[in-house]
């Protein structure tokens, strides 16, 4: 606790019970006869309480404070009130901060800003949607082109589907995939790799609704961000399935592709 004058130091020592009898009488006489001294002493008393409550007293002052100063019930009450006021001040500050935040949000300026931001987001969203749609069209076109190209000596009929992580789409863009009941049919599932996928090899498994692995294989190559799993059509019955794409050991799941198969 810092003090400007020798008199302040003397008064502090008085409050903390450190004075000799002579000095104590000197301080007592001073504040009894001089109201300004009393005012100063009360001010220092308050400051002492204040700094005690704020844990700003030196260890020595703190020890003397607790052993001498707090012996008085009145001072104890003052210290409790100071503590309570400190808590109230903190609470009030937090409350005001919350209120200011809401007031800020409701300000006409902020409302305009929020409206402008929302408009920008809307435009960006629309642009992204357009871009995604054209990308999808490009992929479909590429797939269709692939399908139009003559298969090198196709030994058996093939049905192909493009699957996206988390969803499935057939070449006919339906939610459910229809495969013909053709004998010897090979079904090719082209799985789009997720964005953060590491380079091949991958392990792909096709699981039934109840979790049994119907088919699995290691795929060592990817093409245009996709890998292809070719499965014998005879293995596939109508029902719900899940393709799981994982890294080769150590195994880490990268994506899953749910799908429903129909065999009309």
């Amino acid at each position: 606790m810092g003090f400007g004058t020798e008199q302040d130091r003397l008064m502090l020592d008085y409050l903390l019970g450190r004075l000799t009898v002579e000095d104590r009488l000197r301080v007592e006489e001073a504040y009894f006869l001089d109201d300004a001294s009393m005012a100063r002493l009360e001010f220092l008393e308050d400051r002492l309480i204040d700094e005690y409550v704020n844990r700003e007293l030196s260890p020595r002052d703190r020890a003397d404070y607790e052993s001498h100063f707090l012996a008085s019930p009145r001072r104890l009450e003052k210290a409790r009130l100071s503590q309570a006021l400190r808590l109230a001040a903190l609470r009030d500050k937090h409350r005001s901060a919350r209120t200011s935040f809401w007031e800020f949000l409701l300000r006409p300026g902020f409302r305009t800003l929020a409206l402008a931001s929302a408009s920008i987001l809307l435009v960006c969203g629309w642009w992204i949607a357009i871009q995604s749609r054209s990308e999808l069209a490009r992929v479909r076109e590429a797939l269709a082109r692939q399908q139009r190209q003559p298969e090198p000596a196709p030994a058996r009929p093939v049905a192909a589907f493009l699957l996206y992580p988390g969803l499935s789409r057939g070449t006919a863009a339906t939610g459910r995939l229809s495969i013909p009941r053709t004998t010897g049919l090979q079904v090719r599932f082209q799985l789009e790799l997720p964005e953060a996928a590491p380079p091949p090899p991958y392990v792909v498994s096709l699981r039934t609704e109840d979790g049994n692995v119907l088919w699995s294989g290691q795929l060592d190559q990817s093409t245009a961000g996709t890998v292809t799993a070719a499965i014998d059509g005879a293995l596939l019955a109508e029902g719900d399935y899940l393709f799981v794409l994982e890294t080769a050991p150590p195994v880490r799941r990268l994506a899953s592709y749910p799908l429903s198969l129909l065999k009309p």
Partner: protein
Amino acid sequence: MAPVMSDSEPVPPLPNREKTPGTSRTLDSAAFESLLRLLDPDRDKAGQRYEYLRRKLTMFFENRLHPDSEHLVDVVMDRVACKLRDGMSIPPVDSVRFLYGVARMVALEEHRRAAREQTTPLTWEVPDRLQPDERELECLDRCLNALDPATRGTVLGYYLGQGSAKLNNRTGIAARLGITHAALANRTWRIRTRLARCVRQCVEQDR
């Protein structure tokens, strides 16, 4: 309901004590009136002076570690009042010095009595007793709400922050109010005194 708070100190009523232990005199209204007249011819001012002198006496006994300072303050006031009633003439200019002399005498008597009776010194546990309880906090809220917003803001602002942040904060409040640090401390002291009284009344009212 929050207790009503007033800025002015009321004239103190006659203390409710038939006979004060430690004196051989009985305090009555005549003695009390004599004391007030000594302190100031104006009754209101005398009342304020009486309260102020009680504060000085409380400070005195507290610093001498007397366990029941309030009681000893009563003893001093009663003793001076009875002397006045019984015809002792004390020049107003010497009234405070006289009071101080009586206070020292009472302190000495109390010291001797304690030594004779081997009174156990006060013991206290600091940390627990410093924490205000829920009731006190509720009452403080009520009392703060009874203040006008500017006064409330001043006192709460005064208690905000620690270390240099607290000092800066107080400097800001003093500058805003156009007063010195010392004046701000005094103003806060007065507000806190009112709050202390209000909280005490509120807590007692709800008991």
